[in-house]
C-alpha cells in the first residue's frame, strides 16, 4: 500500500491510508497536534463530539484540490493523498477553537480550587491555551443532583463535558455497561440506570479516561493536590491486567495508583481495579523509577511554559 502524503501546518508527513488527520499530526508531533477532549485512540468510535480538534482542509487531495467547505474534525477525518491541512496556521481554526473552549466552559463550574483533577485536567490546559481571559456569561451554570455510583468512583456531573469516553470504556473493556447518557441537550447526564453502582473489575479506567474532574478516585479524594505528589512507574504481577502502573507518592505513602498515560493523556494500557484501588502498600509494587510527565501539565512543571502563539495566529520558529 503506497503511503499518502499530507501537509499539516506546512510540515509534510507520509502516513498509511485510513489514518486520520489527528493521527497524522501526532506522527509529526509538537504544536501541530490539535487538542482532543473526546478522541481517545484506544477507544473505537471515539471522537467527533467536542469539536476542539477542528482543522481547516485547504486542499482536499492531489486529485481534487478544492478546499473542504467547513472545518473538519481531525480525529474523524481520514487523510487523502495530497491533503493540505491548516491547524495553528489558520486564524479561522484558532478563532473557532477559542469559541469551542468557551462553549465547554460556560457551564463548567470552574471549581478547580476544590477539584481533584486540577493540575492534570485537559480542560484546564485547553482553556489556558485557547480560552478567553474573561467570561462572557452572566447566567447561572447548569447543575445536576449528585448521584452515588459506588464506593470507588465519584461522579461529579456538573463538571462533565460529555466526551462519551467513559461510556465507550464501559462498552469496550468491561463485561457490561451499567451507565450511559440520559436526557438530551445540555441536560444530558452520565448516569446509571436507577442509580446502580458501577461495579466491575475495570471500572476504574473511567477515571483515567475522563478529561475533566467529572470522574475521580474516591480513595484519593481530597488527599492531596496532584502536583504535591511524585509519580513513579511501578509494576506487579497481576492476573487480570498488565500490572504496569504509576504510583502517586507523598513521602513513603502511596496516595493513588493510575494507569500510565502517554503525552496525549491517553492510557498506554488499561489496568484493573485490583491494582488501582486495592494495592497501596509499598511492598505490593516493584518501583521502576520516576515517571516523566510530558506535555505542559502543571504537575511536572508547576507553571505553564510560554506558548509560542503570536497574536496573528501565525506560528514562528
Amino acid at each position: 500500500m503506497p503511503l499518502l502524503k499530507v501537509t499539516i501546518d506546512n510540515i509534510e508527513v507520509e502516513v498509511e491510508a485510513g489514518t486520520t488527520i489527528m493521527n497524522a499530526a501526532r506522527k509529526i508531533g509538537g504544536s501541530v497536534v490539535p487538542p482532543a477532549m473526546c478522541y481517545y485512540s484506544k477507544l473505537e468510535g471515539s471522537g467527533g463530539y467536542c469539536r476542539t480538534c477542528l482543522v481547516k482542509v485547504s486542499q482536499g487531495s492531489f486529485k481534487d484540490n478544492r478546499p473542504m467547505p467547513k472545518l473538519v474534525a481531525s480525529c474523524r477525518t481520514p487523510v487523502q493523498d495530497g491533503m493540505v491541512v491548516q491547524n495553528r496556521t489558520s486564524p479561522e481554526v484558532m478563532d473557532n477553537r477559542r469559541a469551542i473552549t468557551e462553549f465547554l466552559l460556560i457551564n463548567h463550574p470552574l471549581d478547580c480550587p476544590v477539584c481533584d483533577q486540577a493540575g492534570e485536567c485537559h480542560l484546564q490546559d485547553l482553556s489556558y491555551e485557547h480560552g478567553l481571559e474573561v467570561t462572557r456569561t452572566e447566567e447561572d451554570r447548569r447543575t445536576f443532583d449528585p448521584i452515588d455510583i459506588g464506593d470507588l468512583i465519584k461522579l461529579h456531573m456538573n463538571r462533565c463535558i460529555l466526551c462519551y469516553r467513559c461510556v465507550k470504556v464501559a462498552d469496550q473493556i468491561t463485561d457490561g455497561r451499567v451507565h450511559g447518557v440520559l436526557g438530551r441537550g445540555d441536560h444530558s447526564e452520565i448516569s446509571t440506570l436507577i442509580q446502580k453502582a458501577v461495579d466491575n473489575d475495570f471500572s476504574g479506567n473511567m477515571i483515567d479516561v475522563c478529561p475533566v474532574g467529572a470522574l475521580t478516585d474516591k480513595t484519593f479524594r481530597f488527599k492531596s493536590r496532584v502536583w504535591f505528589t511524585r509519580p513513579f512507574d511501578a509494576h506487579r504481577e497481576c492476573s487480570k491486567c498488565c500490572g504496569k502502573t504509576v504510583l502517586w507518592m507523598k513521602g513513603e505513602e502511596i496516595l493513588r495508583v493510575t494507569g500510565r498515560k502517554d503525552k496525549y493523556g491517553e492510557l498506554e494500557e488499561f489496568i484493573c481495579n485490583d491494582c488501582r484501588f486495592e494495592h497501596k502498600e509499598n511492598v505490593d509494587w516493584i518501583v521502576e523509577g520516576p515517571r516523566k510527565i510530558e506535555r505542559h501539565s502543571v504537575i511536572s512543571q508547576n507553571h505553564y511554559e510560554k506558548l509560542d502563539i503570536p497574536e496573528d495566529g501565525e506560528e514562528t520558529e
Partner: protein
Amino acid sequence: MAEKILLKNIDVPGLASFEVYRKLGGYSAVEKVLKNFTPDQVTSEVTKSGLRGRGGAGFPAGMKWGFIDKKTNNPRYFVCNFDESEPGTFKDRHIGQLNPHQLIEGMILGSYALGARTSYIYIRGELFYVLRIIEKAIAEAYKNGFLGENILGSGYSLDLYCQPGAGAYICGEETALLESLEGKRGNPRIKPPFPAVVGLYGCPTVVNNVETIAALPWIINNGGEAYSAVGIGNSKGTKLISACGHINKPGIYEIELGLPVEEFIYSDEYCGGIRPGHTLKAVVAGGSSVPILPANLILKTAEGKPRLMSYESLSEGGFQSGTMLGSGGFIVMDETTCIVKNLLTFAKFYHHESCGQCSPCREGTGWMEKILHRIESGHGTMKDIDLLVDISKHIEGNTICPLGDAAAWPVASAIRHFREEFEEHVKLQKCPF
C-alpha cells in the same frame, strides 16, 4: 396551476381507504413498474424528473439513489422520513393522514428501484393517530397483494413497517433517524460514511422525505420528463407549502415551483393576503431554521427581481439578502410581531431539541436562548446583540449535524435584518410590542 400532483384527490372522501384510492387509479404505477420496468429504469425516470428532496436540503433524489452501494451483498433499505417536526412545517402530516396509500405506493416504487426487501416509514412520535391510519393502510395493501411476498406475481417481495419515534426533533436528521430506528439513542452519526454506504444496521440505505416519496407514483405514471416540465430552472415539479401566521387563509398549498412569492401571499388562490388592516413585516420562508427575511427582501431580491418560490430564487443573494426554500414551512408575520420574541421561541425550541452530542450546539443553543430571554425581558445590553452574532457564527458549520446551523441561522438573520428592533429592546429596557 394546471394539474395537482400531490394533492390531486385529497378532497375525495374516504381517500385513506384502499378501495377509493384504487378506484382513482392508485397503485397503477406499481403495476406498471413491476411489469415493464427494471429497477434502474425507475431510478433513471426519477433522475430525469429532476425531483429534489423535499425535507429541506433539496438534494436531487435520483442522485441520492445513485449513491447507494450496490457492491455489497448486504440487504438494502429504503426509509421514509416522516419525522416532520420543524416549527411551521405541517405538510407531510397532511399526506399521511389523508392519503396514506400514495405514500405506500411511493415506498413500493422506491424500494423496488433500490432493491430493498424491507422498508420503513419512521413517523414522528406525536403523530400517533397518523401512525394508526398508515398501519391500517399498510394492512390493506398487504391484503390486496401490493405488499408482502411476490407482489402481483412479479417475484418482487417487500415488507413495509411503520415505526413511531419517541418525539425528538433530532430524529428527523437522517442518521439520527437510523440510530433511533435501530432502537438506539437518536444521536446523529458522524459522516462519512453516509447512509448510502453504511446506513440502517450497517447496510446501504436511502432516506427520503414523505413528500419526495409521494411524488413518485405521478412521476412513474406520467414519466420523468412530464414532471420536469413543471417548475422552473432546477426547481422541478410542485411543492407543498404549509402557510401559517398572519395571513387570511393559512393552510397547505401545492404550488408549482417558480410561483412569485408576492402572488403566493396575496392571491386569493393561496394565502389570501395579510389579515385586514395590517401589513407584511417578515417571512420565514421554509421552516423555522431558515433565515428570516423582511418584507422588502422576501417580495423582491436585493437586485429588485421578483422573488419566486423556488430553490434558486429564494436563496438568491446568499444569506446576506436571501433565505432557503427549506421544508416549506411558510411563516408570515405582520407588523404586530416582535422579532425578538419570535426568535426567542425558535431558540427555545432548538435548545430543547439539541441532542447534546457535540459541544457548540449543546452549549451554544442554551446560551443564545438565555441571552434572548434577557433582551426580551428588558435586561439586555448592546453587547449582548453582538455576543449573539458571535455565538451563532461559531455554532454554524462546527457541529456534527445541521441542527447547529438550524439554530444559528435564525439568530444571525434576525439580527442582520432587524437589528434596530433588538436595540430598541435594550434602549427601552422592555419589549416595545
